[in-house]
């Protein structure tokens, strides 16, 4: 921005945004108005006193295509096609939707006008700040039809008043950046709850990722109205407001625990025998389960907002919540019957010390059964705790992705053992056949199979160390 282009500047306290815009409209100015308030910046493009463009600095453009899909206004395949071509530009997105006949030209105009009104309505509430007007040429490629400042101001002021009113009456504590998400335990049909179409649309868009402002833009519904509906949905326990600070702590804690488990997996000593190998995997699984239980004891939904919770209550809750899930697995993997919940942890000591009771092939079979059982349990445990703690949200999705990668690494280790088992079974079968005369008279090739003690299978190249 050239200094000589700046023809007007001042404080918002001296001259409010409304007055500045009116003044620029009356004098038919062409250029760009920048309004700064705290971390927020708004730039309004004017041509001959009419609004031809608007941009909010630092505010990510909402994914309009995803939102239209969520409210069944657009087919996801079509959305994907447009997304690739438009590369996140909202004006281009709208233009392409019109071009392909998936949106009318008048709807595009209404959407663009609504976005301008929404931003100006927000900026009208800024009390402190600074403005600058720069005389400069503006690009002509805007899809926005020049807007009359008076009509934009009228609508923006009406919307700003609505916000003021609900804030004054303490109807809601929500702001335009509030993100809400569906409550995880809601399973009933919302259509039977007497919600109107507007409420159902807001509910559909409360997916834990979209801020209130974006929902307002997608539905072309004033922010205050969206806030009102969201408050009502929260009262009905259909949605909850996402506490980003709490989720940061939660995500960090769980990520650190996954890193610890991964590190234990990478660093564990690989024994020379399959029994030692399986024992190592069992230790990792048991530790991982207990890490997850400790995490859930700190972040479970049931304990939120209740201040200090006694450790006894946490232990009881964990046992009550997860012991029933272990029961069906015990039917499939009877070795799990030797585990039990004690002090909020899954006590696997009986399994880990089985070598004092049984030996050889039988011990290996028990360990293998325990690995499969605990693997199934940890899988279920993670899914259940994440669903309880963050439900359907971007945090949940990110953590699930990291967790799946950890399970993938773990499964690779398990596969090594499975390959060994398969080779051993093949060798046993061949040995059995070898005792009978071969009908084809061919000699059996035994060179590629592992030794009975498994020693040759666990070669040094296959071991990974840190």
């Amino acid at each position, binding site marked *: 921005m050239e200094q000589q282009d700046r023809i007007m500047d001042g404080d918002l306290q001296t001259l409010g945004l409304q007055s500045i815009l009116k003044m620029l409209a009356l004098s038919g100015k062409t250029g760009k108005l920048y309004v700064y308030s705290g971390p927020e910046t708004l730039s309004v493009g004017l041509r001959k006193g009419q609004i031809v463009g608007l941009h909010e600095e630092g505010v990510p453009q909402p994914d309009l295509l995803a939102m239209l899909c969520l409210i069944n206004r657009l087919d996801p395949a079509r959305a994907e096609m447009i997304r690739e071509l438009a590369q996140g530009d909202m004006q281009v997105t709208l233009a392409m939707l019109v071009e392909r006949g998936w949106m009318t030209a008048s709807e595009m105009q209404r959407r663009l006008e609504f976005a301008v009104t929404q931003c100006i309505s927000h900026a009208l509430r800024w009390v402190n700040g600074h403005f600058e007007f720069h005389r400069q040429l503006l690009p002509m490629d805007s899809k926005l039809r020049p807007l009359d400042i008076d009509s934009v101001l009228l609508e923006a002021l009406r919307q700003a008043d609505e916000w003021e009113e609900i804030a004054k009456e303490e109807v809601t504590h929500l702001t335009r950046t509030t993100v809400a998400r569906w409550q995880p335990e809601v399973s009933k049909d919302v259509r039977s709850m007497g919600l109107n179409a507007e409420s159902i649309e807001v509910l559909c868009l409360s997916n834990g990722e979209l801020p209130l402002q974006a929902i307002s833009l997608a539905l072309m519904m004033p922010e205050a109205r969206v806030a009102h509906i969201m408050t009502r949905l929260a009262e009905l326990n259909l949605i909850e407001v996402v506490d980003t600070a709490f989720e940061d702590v939660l995500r960090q804690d769980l*990520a650190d625990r996954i890193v610890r488990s991964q590190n234990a997996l*990478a660093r564990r000593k690989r024994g020379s025998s399959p029994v030692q190998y399986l024992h190592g995997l069992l230790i990792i699984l048991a530790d991982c389960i207990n890490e997850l239980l400790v995490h859930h004891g700190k972040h479970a939904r049931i304990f939120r907002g209740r201040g200090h919770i006694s450790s006894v209550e946490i232990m009881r809750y964990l046992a009550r919540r997860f012991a029933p899930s272990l029961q069906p697995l015990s039917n499939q993997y009877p070795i799990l019957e030797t585990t039990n919940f004690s002090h909020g942890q899954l006590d696997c000591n009986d399994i880990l010390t089985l070598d004092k009771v049984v030996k050889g092939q039988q011990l290996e079979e028990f360990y293998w059964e325990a690995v499969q059982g605990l693997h199934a349990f940890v899988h279920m445990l993670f899914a259940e705790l994440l669903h309880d703690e963050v439900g359907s949200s971007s945090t949940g999705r990110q953590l699930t992705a*990291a967790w799946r990668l950890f399970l993938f690494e773990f499964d690779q280790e398990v596969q090594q053992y499975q390959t060994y088992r398969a080779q051993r079974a093949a060798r046993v079968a061949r040995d059995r056949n070898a005792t009978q005369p071969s009908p084809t008279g061919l000699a059996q090739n035994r060179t590629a199979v592992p030794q009975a003690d498994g020693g040759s299978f666990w070669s040094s190249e296959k071991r990974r160390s840190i």
Partner: protein
Amino acid sequence: MVPTVLVVDDSPTVRKIIQMTLQREHIRVVTAGDGLSALTSVADETPALILLDIQLPRMDGYHICQIIRKNLQFRQIPIIMLSGKDGLFDKMRGKLSGSTEYLTKPFDSAELIQTVKKHLANWQERVPVQYENTRPRLRYRG
């Protein structure tokens, strides 16, 4: 403009978690799973910082670190070694190969963020040496 951090680790879990953690801090993250891809990423992305695991397929972290330090264009990039080895000898070896700092695994997110931010504090001031009409190259003579 956001800084780019290159994360080099053979574990996809570690790569994902570091990516997740740093992206929350508005840091762009690119990842590599082995030594040679790491060198390619350094040349392509010119990262502001490298988080480098030691035990890697195809080429270990010490070797990568030495190659980067010998290259005029990339030698100023801070390299934080990530390793499960926390012995004095390993730390010394890391230092001798040219690492800026050494983080022991398992690290916690807060420690990682703090260390990364410390070394990114003046990343925009570190102007890399530019060669006209040449694509930056890292040569590996292994």
